[in-house]
Structure formats: C-alpha cells, structure tokens
C-alpha cells in the first residue's frame, strides 16, 4: 500500500527537532481538543475564561486545580518511574486503591496512636508497592508481559475495594458503599486555601526526591543505563535487576500514596470513586513531562485544570465531563504520534529504480 514510501530509523534527532515535534504535537492536540469543546457547545468566547481564568487565575479555582493536581503528581510519578525503565504500569489505579485501602485500614482500626497519620501514608505506600510486586516479579523471572498483569491486578483491586466497602469497611449508618468518616487526627492538614492540604507538600517532596535521586545519585545514573540499554548496563557492572525492582516498587508506592492522599486529604473516607482514571491521567502527565520528575508538577496542574474546567463546563453549558476525557485522549494521541517525526525519517522512493 505504501510501496513508494520507505521509513528509516533516525540515528538521532537534534534538540531542535525534538522540541519542535513536541510543541507541534501538543499544539495540534490542544487545538483539536478546543475544537471538540466548541463542537460540544461551549461558546468560543468562553473558552479562555473557563479554561484559563477560572482554573488558574482565580484563587478559588486555582485551589481546586491544585487540590486535584496533588494525587495526579503521585500518579504521574508512578507512571514515569516505571516507564523510565521501559516498564508499562497500566495498573496505577489498582495500586492507588490498595494504597487507599491500607491507609483507611490504619484509620478505621485506630492503629499507631499519635503516629497514625504518618503510618497511614506509609501503609499507603506499602500497599501500592505490594500490588505492583507480582507484575515486576513475573516480568523479571518469567518474562510475562507487565502490561496485562498490571491491568488485571488493577481490576482485582477494584473488586477488592468494593468487597471491603460493602463489607468490613462499610459505614453501617449509611446506605452508600463508603467507609465511615475519618477522625481529625487522620486527616492531612489544610492551609485555609480551599481544599489544598499537606498532600501537596508531600507530592512536591516526592517529586524533588525523585528528581534528585534520578539526576544526582549513582542509582539514578545506573537507572539511565538500565532503562536505555540493559546489556550495556550489565557490561558496565550496574545492578540492572535491582535498579528495575527498586524503581518499579517506588512507582507502585507513589501510586499507593496517591490513594492515601486522596482519602486523608480530601475525601476523609474511602469511596468507590476514589482515584478513577488515575492510570490514564498519570500516563498523560508522564508523557507530557517526558518522564522527567521536575516537569511533573507543571503538567499535573495543566491536566488538573482541564478536569476542573470540565466540571464547571458541565454546570454552565451542559457539556458532559466525558469531553475532558476526549480532550486528554486527543492530546495523548497527538503526542505519541508526534514521536514519529523524531524516530523515523521518510524517504520517497523513485519508481523504476531498484
């Protein structure tokens, strides 16, 4: 079908082409997303107001955006830490739910006395890490694809969440499948600015630790080699297996912490809706940040802003929140298609010559 066109892998694309393809793809994705919003009934004139002013420039709107961005930063770390080692974590939600479940268990069973809140966060990380453990073990020992295993584990986690909400964790005084509300000592501190809570500080610390570890330690150095060329890493004497295990478990722990921060920071209880779509959000933000931790806060705020705007578009213009999902999907698709420009070179063969 494409006989006259041949593709070659590029040996390298310079920084200019790299940046241009990223910006171009992002611009295309955003433009298409805006077109979708307009087609869905949002007046063109209102776009700037709703998508920029209301979510980033007004104090209340910005507070909503930052609140929503908090767990997203963890979700994006969960995607990026794994992806840097070419490990596809398609089960961020599952790890998040386990984190939320473990944190809730610490709260409901009143474990840890005065250290309960820190313990909840630690439990969340342990839960998330344990939930990703089978996939990384199966991959390294047996070569089983992590894509399917993380996905399946995520579905199992959701069923476990429901099992607990309709059973052991359920609030007997309430008809909905939610846990009882947490005590004050089980809640992350707020700063008097909307729902923004200490979780955002935790997220920024996590981002900083990840950036420092990856950028300025021997572990991070080894991770660059293991992620790019495991054979070369092996020949250089880097502990490839350990680096992979540690990075992936850290990713799982970050996803778990996302769950912990949601239940202890904003919801104050466990519900079925906790962290929905976090796998997708995390992967979109990681793709925008190009798996670089330092960029994650910026793009988490961007994606959170889109979601916050979606909620208000629903109220004012009757536009479904599904539109936000479409917009994110379009942006991601444009970004990954844009990598074509930097990966391949197109050659047009002249016919008649062989």
């Amino acid at each position, binding site marked *: 079908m494409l006989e006259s066109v041949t593709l070659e892998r590029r040996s390298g694309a310079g920084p200019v082409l790299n940046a241009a393809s990223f910006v171009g793809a992002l611009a295309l994705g955003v433009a298409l997303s805006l077109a979708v919003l307009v087609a869905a009934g949002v007046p063109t004139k209102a776009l700037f107001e709703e998508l920029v002013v209301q979510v980033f420039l007004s104090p209340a709107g910005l507070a909503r955006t930052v609140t929503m961005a908090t767990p997203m930063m963890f979700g994006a770390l969960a995607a990026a830490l794994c992806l840097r080692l070419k490990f596809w974590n398609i089960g961020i939600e599952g790890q998040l739910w386990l984190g939320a479940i473990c944190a809730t268990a610490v709260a409901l069973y009143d474990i840890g006395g005065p250290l309960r809140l820190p313990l909840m966060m630690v439990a969340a990380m342990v839960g998330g890490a344990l939930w990703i453990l089978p996939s990384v073990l*199966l991959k390294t020992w047996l070569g089983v694809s992590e894509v399917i295993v993380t*996905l399946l584990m995520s*579905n199992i986690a959701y069923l476990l969440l429901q099992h607990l909400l309709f059973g052991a964790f359920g609030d007997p005084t309430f008809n909905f499948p939610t846990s009882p509300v947490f005590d004050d000592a089980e809640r992350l501190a707020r700063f008097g600015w909307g729902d923004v809570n200490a979780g955002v500080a935790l997220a920024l610390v996590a981002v900083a630790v990840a950036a420092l570890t990856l950028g300025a330690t021997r572990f991070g150095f080894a991770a660059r080699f293991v992620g790019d060329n495991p054979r070369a890493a092996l020949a250089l004497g880097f502990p490839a297996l350990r680096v992979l295990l540690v990075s992936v478990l850290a990713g799982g722990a970050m996803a778990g912490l996302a769950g912990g921060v949601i239940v202890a920071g904003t919801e104050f209880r466990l519900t079925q809706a906790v962290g929905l779509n976090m796998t997708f959000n995390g992967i979109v933000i990681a793709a925008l940040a190009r798996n670089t931790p330092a960029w994650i806060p910026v793009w988490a705020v961007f994606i959170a802003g889109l979601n916050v705007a979606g909620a208000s578009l629903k109220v004012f213009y009757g536009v*479904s929140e599904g*539109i936000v999902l479409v917009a*994110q999907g379009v942006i991601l*698709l444009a970004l*990954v*298609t844009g990598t074509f420009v930097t990966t391949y070179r197109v050659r047009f063969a002249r016919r008649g010559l062989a």
Partner: protein
Amino acid sequence: MTIAVTAWLGAMPGFMAPLLLAALGLLLCERAGVLNLGVEGVMALGAMVGAAMSLAGWSPWAAMGAGALGGLAVSLPFMVAVIVFRAPQISAGLALAAIALGASAALGRGASHKPFPGLENMTWGGDWAALPVVGRMLFQQDAVVYLTLILAGLMALWLMRTRAGLRLRAVGEDPATADASGVDVQLYQFGAVAVGSLLIGLAGAYLSVGGSNIWTEGMVAGRGWIALALVVFAQWSPIRAIGGAVLFGGAEALIPRLQAMGVEVPVYLLSMLPYALTIGVLVLMALSKRARQAEPGFLGRAYIRQDR
C-alpha cells in the same frame, strides 16, 4: 435446584456472547501484531450508538450494525497513529480508550436510562427446546449468540486453513519474513484492526441492544478488560476463546443467580476469578515453552522494512 441451574445456564450465553465477540475482535488485532488497549472504550461507544439508534426507532439489527460502525469510526485515528505513524501501541490504545469512553458519555446523554425494545430470543429446535436443564441454554437464545459461535469457528478456520489467514498470522509473528514473501504488512494490519474494531463495537452494541435494553454510562463495566484477558487465556485461539467466554460468562451469570437464591456469597471476590485465572494461565504459559509460542511474536512492536 434444577430450576436455578436451568435459569443460570439459560442466562449464561447472553453473558458469554459479548465477551466472545470482543475477544474475537481483539484476537484478530493481536494476530496481526496490534495490541488494542482501546477495547473498553470502543465497547462503550458501540453500546451507546446501539442504544441511541434503537431509541431513534431503528431495528435491533440495524442499531447493532450502527454500533459496530461506531466502533470502527472511533478506532480510525488509532489505526492511523499505530499502523502508519508507528506510534507506541500501548499509549495510543489508552488514548483510544479515553476518547471512546469520553465520546460515549458526551454523545449519549440523551439516550441514558431510556428503555427500548431490544433483540428477541429465538425459539427453535421443536421438542428439544423442552429438554430439562439445557433446553433453554441451547434453544432459546437470540441470534447473536448463535452467530457469534459460528463466527468463532469460521475465524479459526480462516486463520488456520486459508492463505490470507496464514499471511495475517505471519504479519503478527514475523513481519520481516512476511514482507519478504510479498505480504503487505500495513494492509493486513489495517484490515485486521478494522474488522476487529467492528466486532468490538458490535460486542458493545449487543450489551445494550441484545442484553439490557437500556443504556447507562459505564455499563461496559470492565468487560473490555475481561475480553483482553480472555484472549490471553485462550492463547490466541478462537476455539479456546469459546471455552474461556463460557467460563467467564458463566461466572458472571452465576452471581445474580446465587444472590436471587439468597445464598450469601462474596460477590466481588467471585468476580475476581477471570482475572486471577488469567494471571495463572500467563504463569503456566511462561513456564511451558510450547504455550509461550502462542503469543504473536511481534505483538505490540513497530515494524519498518529497514528491519528486514
């Protein structure tokens, strides 16, 4: 007890058919080397389109056809990204899932929670239909159930016994060798993903038009992911996919029956069964050299002729 078993077995094919349809669609994509993680969203879109068309007065068959076409239409950007531009299949598939899920929610708001007449069951087989226990399962189902089973058989025959099937499998296993034998790799991938998307869309449409006769957001409820697991469980064989769909669909049909009988069962723990079984199968496959070959060798990777 007999009545309960009869009812369970009678309901099972209705649960089996959408899983099998979606799994067959995915199987076709994966046999051509394309991993389609958009399946959950494409099913959702098919369900919504089927419902909307039914509400618009279309016949159930026309509505399901529209659902299938909807599945194809929403998959087109994915196909172009992955097959022409060699975009990474996993992220592109997740993007497709998001686009299709979002679009079904956004476009289907007018169709939500409105019942409509759906597909009728067939009654055939004469006196056989009155057989105890299995009569209802075998002879009182809608036509899609029977057609899906026939389709699985035809697909197995086509893949294993025809030259085009051989070429399609070669594309998914070893595109370089296929290319060297004159097979147009991209054309076969386009065809496989297009037909696969039609089937996945149809699977979704059957959920609303053939099953519940109503559409609500989120009604696919993870069945796309189960179908994805089912393909692995069936080791990429359409015939084994029938067995897997019977097992997974049977488990799904069992739970409401047990609840209706007043049996206290851990519903959600039982629902984990398909996922847990699939992980078990993955481990067994990895341990057995022969089974490991079942997975298409080039699944999820991008081929360009330079690699030949």
